[in-house]
């Protein structure tokens, strides 16, 4: 098996895909949003409980590929207890990691366990699987409540 595949499907990723953390529906969330990736049918609902700008609790439910599930699961474990602005700032760093790779160590700084996603940049078609949870988070926090989609066009036959 190629080393790129091993980097993509790191043990942490497989583990989170198989046993996603915070995989439940929150009672009384302060914000929720739904994310959808029509390319492969990934679908998730994100529940966030905000208290004075801090993410007190966060959880998700849904179905999707290993990358989308692991990314959502890792995201929830990293964000609990973080301030809203910190969460959105982290999205920026994660986005750089997903699209550019580790760039030495530069893009690994401050991403914690999300470093497990560092192999995705070599698979450009899979980046949106990993960003789905984050785009959904932004929608939830910004309170638009709209269902977001990774695709605006259709993918044929």
């Amino acid at each position, binding site marked *: 098996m190629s080393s790129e595949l091993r980097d993509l499907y790191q043990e942490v990723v*497989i583990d989170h895909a*198989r046993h996603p953390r915070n995989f439940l529906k929150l009672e009384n969330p302060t914000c929720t949003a739904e994310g959808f990736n029509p390319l492969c*049918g990934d679908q998730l609902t994100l529940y966030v409980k905000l208290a004075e700008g801090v993410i007190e609790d966060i959880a998700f439910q849904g179905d999707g590929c290993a990358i989308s599930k692991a990314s959502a699961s890792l995201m929830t474990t990293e964000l609990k207890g973080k301030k809203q602005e910190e969460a959105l700032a982290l999205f920026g760093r994660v986005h750089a990691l997903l699209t550019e790779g580790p760039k030495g160590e530069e893009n690994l700084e401050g991403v914690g366990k999300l470093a497990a996603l560092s192999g995705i940049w070599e698979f450009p*078609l899979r980046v949106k699987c990993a960003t789905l949870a984050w785009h959904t988070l932004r929608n939830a926090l910004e309170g638009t409540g709209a269902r977001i989609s990774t695709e605006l066009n259709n993918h044929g*036959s």
Partner: protein
Amino acid sequence: MTGVQTGSVTSLGLADGQVGGNDVADFNIERVCQNFPILREKVYGKQLVYLDSAATSQKPQGVIDAMSRFLLKKNANVHRGVHHLAERATEAYEGARVKAQRFLNAEHANEIVFVRGATEAINLVAQSYGKKHVGEEDEVLITAMEHHSNIVPWQMLCEQKNARLRVAPINDNGELLLDEFERLIGRKTKLVAVTHVSNVLGTINPIRHIVEMAHARGARVLVDGAQAVPHLKIDVQALGCDFYVFSGHKMYGPTGIGVLYGRSELLEEMPPYQGGGDMILSVSFEKTVYNVPPYKFEAGTPNMAGAVGLGAAIDFLAGLEHEALAAHEKEVLAYGTRMLSAVPGLRLVGTAHAKASVLSFVLDGVHPHDIGTILDREGVAIRTGHHCAQPLMSRLDIPATARASLGCYNTRQDIDALVAGLDQVRELFQ
């Protein structure tokens, strides 16, 4: 072109079990593969194994050359100029129409309308024939296994006309429930639109039987032949259908060209689909007189090089002995079915008795998208997702499948590469 037969199940030899190993040996697979330069490509240093022909087929050298020759030697606008090149171009374009006529065994060449593909052909019928003949509370009947392209145009029509879209159900093997189908064709049914071969399940539908049921109740039948034309011999007169549509690119031709076959008397009375040049006899600001079919439906400068490429693809298929091709494809499909069924945790989706070159499957605990990525790194190209058939996915209660689909160039070795790739998937995930 010889021995034109119907596109029914028996013509593929699927039901009679008489196709033996010797027939397969008659099919020179090496020579067939040599026609497809792209099959020599390497991806990630691995030999390409192309198992995505149901999405689009690869193109033989003959098609590439014919299009290139047209552009190098014959290009001019068709039906217009008096100069020599215009004559050559018109001859090439109309020659392709005659090839398509013979390919479908249509009675007349003017029953062949060139369109962009099956999708445009269905939209044309919906917005021309459908708009004229489907009224309020009328019904259009489709099936649960249709591609979005044979669902959405009818939904749009039904919405415009306040008509009702009905859906014929399938069983768990992916076969139409014909009794139910028959019950759904009623007095109000104006049109039945059904796929010849399912792009997800591979099911070959009994078109002739469906046409008989529909015609007995006065409904017209459109057949989506996009997945059928690369595999079956088509005879629209034997099938008895009113419309038959297909795309060039799924049968070794180029993209952007396809065919709408419509029976003469229907095309005659149908209003134009788009307005523009070539579809008129005379234009004044007071009144325009439309041209006759097929030109009435071919507004604007057509895809000339595409039509020529389609003609070359038809020649390519005609050059393969059909019985031998069908036997080869059947053998590889049977081998693939056997090998995939033996993969632990794998379930084939679509196990119809009459089936063509599609192997859809799901694997326990692994999402199809992950399967696709891992196989890709082994050089194996498959399709994953809902295959533009979301209602079918809902019916089957799965979000997506992995789909290996076969063309004339695929072999047992390709299936072996697929299974070896799946071993890697299982190693990672199971």
